[in-house]
């Protein structure tokens, strides 16, 4: 499968050693956010708005403050009043000021000597609300007479005459759209809708914070990015960033939802008000669903032109996405992904980021791409069906390749969509015969991947083992992959490398583990840092041999003379060099800091086989295949896990998951009993194909693999359901109720 343009043969990369964090996790020793505690620690609890939109007329916490064990109560009055721009939005979302903007919006918080006391105190806080009109649905929010979520919320980009709930507007494209549609033999359009879905990480948000009166503090947080936590908390609380030290805990899933702040500034403010005692806050599942960021809901118009042979001639999209009360839907990314898989002469994209009385949207695995894929890949499938064309052949005819101009502008470097489509077509799943009420769906997906600000260090221990220090929390196997790349660089065993994730004071700024970047970016930085230490080891050996440093080279854990002219010397191992460090110049360490370049764009193709029960509308996934270009699979088991994890989340989003709001604007399913994520018994075996078209801009050919896998499942399942039932559903989730209605009435769900 590998198309290997990088000629190195690898000793460790591509192997499947045990994960370094496995033992601690299966024995319960790993410390997650809620496991942290400290002497004198208080417990925090948060009072949340029961209304979707309400003016806060007064807050009286006199009774609560008198409860035995209550040490501090905070409201918005305890936060700086001069914030503006993004810090103000972060603060507003953290704790309401004059207005509660959504069901679950934080109103006040208590720190007490026990969780029980803190929760009892919440019951004693009296809040007088004036209920305001609310809006939940994105299309309703776009109407001229919709309730206004926040006045003057539109930014510089919003065209005159837009709904006051439009926060931002994007438009781009290229080519002659009219001419493109004129060239088509078939032009089809449709409205597609997706509901908000939560990342569904198993570990709720948790943190412990300590802040002194002088602004010096520490924080232990379950997060994907502790520098972001430091930066955002500093901006919200007006602290000096360097005085706040943030340490990440182990993390039980994030998927983008743990790249921003929710409870962290509250814990810091409670600590400060209680005289600097540590304060721990652990969210309940209900709080996670009501008050943290799911992804956006979307309403999307798509129009595509195709020749009778299957060539795409033109495409237009208009996406409207609500990102909660403070904006921030991934509409820009969705537009970039919409037609990114295809060569099209004429494309036009329009996007609206729309406010609604919902929690502020956070990133969710390939933000925006799944919604875009659902709309575009569904419509392409409809056209393939109309023209009786093979859906993989059509995608192959139109697939982008190296040198193609992407639908959003820049040209692609080396990419592997064609290889991925070919691998999918050859897989046995594509030719298995289907039975009654069964259907097969194919879809492609794209994610651009990200490099980002990265800082690492590498140091030699005195016995020749290696410590690697990174700032990207390990949410998907990055400790193992970074250890493998380090072992490969030095030529030492995997077990001789320990990868540590350090706190904010120990390294330069690191962006979170987001954008599928941890293995790519930290790995590339570690490669650079490790080579610094190798150069230093070669210099020290050269001095010992009294030859030029250029006459020493590194291979398989040894410094060696570069050839017969360098002299006849016995190679010296890393162990020996390390054991003599104190006598040859002191510690040997390297570091690297940069904004990492050279991301490899990522494409995936999925095949879903389903069976639809005509009596109940239940969709059963019979078998599922994920094929994706990994560039280079450093640890194939983790790569397969990422592929499967993305598919599972996409299956949940396609079939079951949705935020259900009542007429009062309050979330009706704020628990996993009612917010239905897939469990093992809902899922088939998910086959994987790791396609390897190495990224030429990474020392080991790596592309990010974490996010792309969630984009194709939504359309793949919709296409499979359409094939099984001959009825097209254009609205997600395809719950039994919706499928049954479609079977009876032909209603597409929109």
């Amino acid at each position, binding site marked *: 499968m590998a198309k290997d343009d990088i000629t190195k043969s690898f000793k460790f990369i591509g192997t499947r050693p045990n994960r370094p964090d496995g033992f601690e996790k299966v024995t319960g020793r790993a410390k997650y956010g809620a496991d942290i505690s400290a002497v004198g620690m208080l417990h925090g609890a948060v009072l949340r708005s029961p209304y979707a939109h309400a003016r806060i007329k007064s807050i009286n916490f006199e009774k609560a403050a008198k409860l035995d064990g209550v040490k501090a109560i905070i409201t918005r009055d305890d936060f700086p009043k001069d914030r503006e721009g993004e810090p103000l939005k972060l603060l507003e979302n953290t704790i309401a000021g004059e207005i509660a903007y959504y069901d679950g919006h934080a109103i006040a918080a208590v720190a007490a000597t026990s969780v029980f006391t803190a929760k009892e105190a919440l019951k004693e806080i009296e809040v007088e609300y004036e209920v305001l009109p609310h809006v939940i649905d994105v299309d309703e929010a776009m109407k001229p007479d919709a309730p206004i979520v926040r006045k003057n919320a539109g*930014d510089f*980009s919003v065209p005159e005459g837009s709904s006051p709930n439009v926060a931002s507007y994007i438009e781009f494209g290229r080519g002659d759209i009219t001419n493109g549609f004129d060239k088509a033999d078939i032009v089809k359009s449709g409205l597609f809708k997706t509901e908000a879905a939560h990342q569904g990480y198993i570990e709720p948000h948790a943190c412990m914070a300590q802040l002194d009166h002088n602004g010096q503090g520490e924080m232990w947080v379950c997060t994907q990015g502790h520098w972001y936590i430091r930066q955002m908390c500093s901006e919200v609380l007006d602290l000096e960033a360097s005085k706040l030290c943030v340490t990440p805990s182990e993390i039980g899933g994030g998927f983008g939802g743990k790249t921003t702040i929710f409870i962290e500034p509250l814990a810091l403010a409670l600590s400060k008000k209680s005289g600097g005692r540590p304060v721990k806050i652990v969210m309940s599942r209900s709080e996670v669903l009501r008050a943290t960021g799911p992804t956006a809901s979307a309403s999307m118009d798509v129009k595509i032109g195709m020749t009778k042979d299957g060539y795409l001639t033109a495409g237009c999209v208009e996406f409207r996405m609500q990102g909660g009360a403070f904006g921030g839907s991934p509409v820009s990314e969705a537009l970039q992904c919409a037609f990114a898989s295809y060569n099209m002469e004429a494309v036009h994209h329009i996007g609206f980021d729309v406010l609604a009385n919902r929690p502020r949207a956070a*990133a969710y695995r390939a933000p925006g791409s799944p919604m875009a894929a659902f709309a575009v890949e569904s419509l392409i499938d409809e056209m393939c069906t109309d023209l009786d064309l093979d859906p993989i052949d059509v995608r192959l005819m139109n697939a982008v390749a190296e040198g193609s101009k992407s639908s959003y502008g820049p040209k692609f470097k080396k990419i592997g969509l064609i290889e991925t489509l070919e691998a999918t077509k050859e897989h046995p799943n594509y030719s298995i015969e289907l039975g009654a009420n069964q259907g097969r769906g194919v879809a492609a997906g794209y994610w651009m991947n990200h490099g*980002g600000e990265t800082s690492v260090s590498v140091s030699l221990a005195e016995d020749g083992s290696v410590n690697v220090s990174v700032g990207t929390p390990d949410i998907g196997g990055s400790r193992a992959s970074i250890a493998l790349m380090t072992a490969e660089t030095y030529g030492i065993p995997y077990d001789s490398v320990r990868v540590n994730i350090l706190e904010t004071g120990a390294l330069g700024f690191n962006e979170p583990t987001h954008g599928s970047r941890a293995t790519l970016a930290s790995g590339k930085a570690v490669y650079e840092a490790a080579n610094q230490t190798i150069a230093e080891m070669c210099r020290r050996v050269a001095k010992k041999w009294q030859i030029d440093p250029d006459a020493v080279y590194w291979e398989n854990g040894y410094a060696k003379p570069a050839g017969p002219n360098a002299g006849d010397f016995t190679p010296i191992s890393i162990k020996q060099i390390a054991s003599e460090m104190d006598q040859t110049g002191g510690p040997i360490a390297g570091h690297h800091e940069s904004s990492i*370049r050279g991301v490899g764009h990522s494409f995936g193709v999925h095949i879903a086989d389903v069976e639809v029960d005509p009596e109940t509308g239940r969709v059963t996934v019979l078998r599922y295949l994920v094929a994706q270009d990994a560039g280079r699979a450093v640890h194939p088991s983790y790569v397969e896990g990422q592929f499967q994890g993305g598919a599972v989340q996409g299956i949940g989003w396609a079939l079951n998951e949705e935020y259900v709001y009542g007429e009062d604007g309050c979330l009706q399913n704020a628990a996993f009993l009612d917010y239905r994520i897939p469990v093992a018994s809902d899922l088939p075996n998910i086959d994987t194909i790791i396609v390897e078209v190495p990224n030429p801009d990474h020392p080991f050919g790596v592309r990010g693999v974490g996010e792309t896998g969630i984009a194709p499942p939504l359309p793949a399942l919709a296409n499979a359901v359409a094939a099984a039932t001959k009825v097209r559903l254009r609205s997600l989730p395809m719950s039994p109720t919706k499928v049954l209605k479609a079977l009876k009435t032909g209603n597409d769900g929109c």
Partner: protein
Amino acid sequence: MMAVNVYLWASLKKFTNDKDILTIEATTIGELVSVLRRDFPGLKPFLDSGISFAINGELSNPNSNESIPDESEIYIMQKLKGG
């Protein structure tokens, strides 16, 4: 000083005299951004909002010291939100 083509999304044309391709004389990203701020002040909130660049197909965070190769094709986009 060499000229490079800078591609902007169409929704920004209202700040650039209805042009979505600008020819700018600049040798570094920093110079490029300075020229955009000077000649098209309406772009300031966009440039301040968090942007990324694609230089000859290479996506990256903005680095004001980065040299721009000859005949580069530069796209300015919103900063990516990854999950």
